[in-house]
């Protein structure tokens, strides 16, 4: 990974409620995530993991409550969240090449020397030789590599991962776990929702279980930590 220039950032969720009509996706979720933590969210389908991550990415507006990014305890300003987001959907254009995708998002984010940044990231994710290939010709694993490169374009202090290894083969999942280890060791704050991903879950330093939109377990060590992670891997 390239040398990092981000500022360590934590996240605070305060009394987050999210309703879709009469249905509660999240109920009074309050969490303090410290800078550098690697948090694994576990829970059944529909427990609110994805909604919470999309609220953290500022893609979904909470019905009530607030989310703030903290730089050394102080709230960060800016119109865009300092977060990179990787989801099950790749969020890249199939009709563009890997390089064109990265250049597009680098230019939109106002990154200096977008071509150099795109090249560096393509090298890191092992796609430099396929830089001129259309994304639609890529395998699921290669598309996810492009997705990770896109998420890391602006050196985000926070990385949000929503079931990122779904559909990856064991080799792809292993590569992803190694990449995540580098990101965690570089001091980034990582929030990830898991669903049967054992190798990735071992990187977590904190495990939070959601049920029906509420936090039912929040643990860092001990048997409870392992049981929450085991739930994620079930």
């Amino acid at each position: 990974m390239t040398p990092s220039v981000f500022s360590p950032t934590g996240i605070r969720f305060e009394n987050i409620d999210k309703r879709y009509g009469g249905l509660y996706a999240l109920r009074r979720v309050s969490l303090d995530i410290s800078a550098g933590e690697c948090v694994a969210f576990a829970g059944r389908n529909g427990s609110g993991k994805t909604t919470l991550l999309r609220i953290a990415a500022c893609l979904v507006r909470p019905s009530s409550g607030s989310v703030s990014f903290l730089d050394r305890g102080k709230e960060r300003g800016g119109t865009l969240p300092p977060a990179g987001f990787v989801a099950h959907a790749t969020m890249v254009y199939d009709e563009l090449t890997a390089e064109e995708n990265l250049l597009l998002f680098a230019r939109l984010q106002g990154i200096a020397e977008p071509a150099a940044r795109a090249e560096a990231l393509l090298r890191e994710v092992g796609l430099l030789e396929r830089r001129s290939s259309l994304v639609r010709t890529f395998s699921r694993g290669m598309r996810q590599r492009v997705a990770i490169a896109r998420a890391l374009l602006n050196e985000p202090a926070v990385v949000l991962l929503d079931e990122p290894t779904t559909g990856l083969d064991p080799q792809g999942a292993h590569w992803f776990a190694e990449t995540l280890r580098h990101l965690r060791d570089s001091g980034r704050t990582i929030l990830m929702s898991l669903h049967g991903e054992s190798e990735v879950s071992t990187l977590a330093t904190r495990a939070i279980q959601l049920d029906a939109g509420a936090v039912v377990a929040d643990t860092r060590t001990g048997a409870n930590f392992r049981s929450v992670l085991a739930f994620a891997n079930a």
Partner: protein
Amino acid sequence: MALLSNATVLLGKELRTEFRSRELLTTTTVFVLIVIVLFSFSFDPTSEESRRFGAGLLWLAFLFAASLMLQSCFLREQNSDTLSALRLSVSDPFAIFLAKVTANTLFLLLTELLLLPVFAVMYNVPVLPSLHWLVLVCFLGSLGVSIAGTALSAISAQARMRELLLPLLLLPLLTPILVASTEVTAALFDRSPYVQWKGVGFLAVFDLAFLTILWLLGEYLVEE
């Protein structure tokens, strides 16, 4: 400045993906061509009838073609959730709309300019004497269709019956554009062509008003 620079980058992406796949241009051009040819064979209009009814036929064909084109405008962003990636990358979501409106206007205008000569030949209506005014009407009409259509495409893309919803919302909303464009075009097809400034002014005001509404509400249209 960030708004214009982001819109320019996104417009480049829209043009690149379209000219690579040619999905929209091919579909709309073929659709309008079929309508023009079918009407010509069905009614076999005289030159005088074409001057009276041709403008209406032409704009109806453009409008239906536009509803086909605009359908996929935001649906394409949902295939791989690229709309979320765009929202995470641009500080002002209006840049996304500005790029899409410009691209849709260009695609529509290109379709219209390609098919005007075909219309002129099949309906025996001379378009060359007032071509520059026709281009202006086509531009203002296409811009209005694109602004309203792009906004509605963003709304309908999130709905369950999305394929049905867009034409149902779009066609009534664009009736004023259809009427004004048809009247101005009919005046230009006249034996003594003239510019109907009232219609041109109406089109310009419609475009400006809808662009302002889109600028004010754009942020909410792309929200989940």
